[in-house]
């Protein structure tokens, strides 16, 4: 009995506590930068698509909401012919971002994606692609990778030694 009265008194004193509710549409919540929200595809500093269509994100996705098709341009750069994320399936786990070897796919702190029509939740590449570099400025996969593309042959990447010619006798 005494305990119950004490509980009631403590609850009564909560009248004078600050309310914890954030009245959302009027008052925006503060969202940490690592929040896993809407997924975007970023570009490298030169403005080219970072995605090399390696399918690792699609393989990592636990709900299979990522679909893409790899293709190559005239310089030998791989890029996705289409890249489609079905956000009505996406669970925002962030595994695609962890799997991505080129920092192309990234999750952002935006969560306001409500739609009246379910089909509008399927985002195509032009919806996903942004103009900037996202969370990782300055990273350009083709400039650091050893793979040869048009305008940059073997050995011309940053911090890459010229290839060793095994037929040469010189050390």
């Amino acid at each position, binding site marked *: 009995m005494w305990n*119950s009265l004490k*509980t*009631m008194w*403590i*609850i*009564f004193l*909560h*009248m004078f*506590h*600050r*309310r*914890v*509710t954030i*009245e959302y549409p009027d008052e925006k919540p503060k969202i940490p930068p690592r929040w896993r929200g809407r997924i975007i595809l970023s570009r490298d500093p030169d403005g080219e698509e970072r995605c090399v269509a390696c399918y690792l994100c699609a393989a990592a996705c636990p709900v299979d909401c990522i679909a893409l098709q790899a293709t190559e341009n005239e310089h030998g750069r791989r890029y996705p012919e289409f890249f489609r994320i079905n956000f009505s399936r996406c669970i925002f786990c962030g595994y695609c971002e962890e799997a991505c070897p080129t920092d192309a796919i990234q999750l952002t702190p935006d969560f306001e994606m409500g739609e009246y029509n379910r089909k509008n939740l399927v985002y195509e590449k032009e919806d996903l692609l942004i103009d900037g570099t996202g969370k990782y400025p300055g990273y350009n996969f083709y400039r650091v990778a050893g793979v040869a593309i048009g305008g940059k042959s073997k050995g011309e990447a940053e911090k890459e030694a010229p290839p060793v010619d095994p037929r040469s006798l010189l050390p």
Partner: protein
Amino acid sequence: MNEWTGIWANLILILAAVFAFSAMLSWIERRLLGLWQDRYGPNRVGPFGVLQIVADSIKLLTKEDWIPPFADRAVFVLAPAIVAVATLLAFAVVPLAPGIGVVDLNIGLLFFLAMSSLGVYSVVLGGWASNNKYSLLGGFRAAAQMLSYEVFMGLALMGVVMLAGSFNLRDIVAAQENLWFCIPQVLGLATFAVAGIAEARRLPFDLPESENELVAGFHTEYSSMKFGLFFIGEYVGITLISAMIVTLFFGGWLGPLLPPLVWFLLKTFIVIACFVLLRAALPRLRYDQLMAYGWKVMLPLTLVNLLITGAVVLSMA
């Protein structure tokens, strides 16, 4: 002619006021719960959310009114009406202020006890007619709970009757002119409040409903406005019990400065707020605890209270 218009005006105004207040109570309760749980509660519809009840009633009225095919149709339809009618009838004897009140029965207190006990039929019949295991369990619990709490609910009030020497609620209020009965009858107040909470099926004793064990207890199968009637019945019940606590123990309309009606409403509101505070603070009792508490603690307490009051009244006479 004049007398009759007065009675009708009283009747209709009190009915409307009780209905309106009970409806508002759902908003008041949610706001108060929010206040005590560090959140807001409904505050979107209208200023401070006061129109929430309008939104809720539109929702309830436009929902599908479904009667399960396995239910006992007649009883199923009748049950929700009983609780609303019985509790509203009990309001007839509550004296709001001098000259305000529907009837002035000389057995007002007994009438109140009878009507508030009728309310349990609604719950039991509703649970039975739903023909559903959860509802039936809820109905069982309601019946057992009412049986054990009804016993000392009446006994708890006998101390008040002894002191006032009358069953008439106006006489009881008048007898508290010098000293409110909450002081000489503190045990009576405590036991009546507990019984009243059980009678209104409010949180520490809401076993018939207990949404986290029995889905929604006796009204699991009810939808639309039939559910709404149960809902309103519950809120009218809370208002009724609070009004009775005020009338019997806190001097009804008596008080300095302010007009009598304002005093009555103010006191009733404070008691209702205490009911909500109980809901915010206390967890539900287990079924056997409920029974043990009723029979082993509360009933002896009321009997002791009765003996002491009797002895004091005898020695004073």
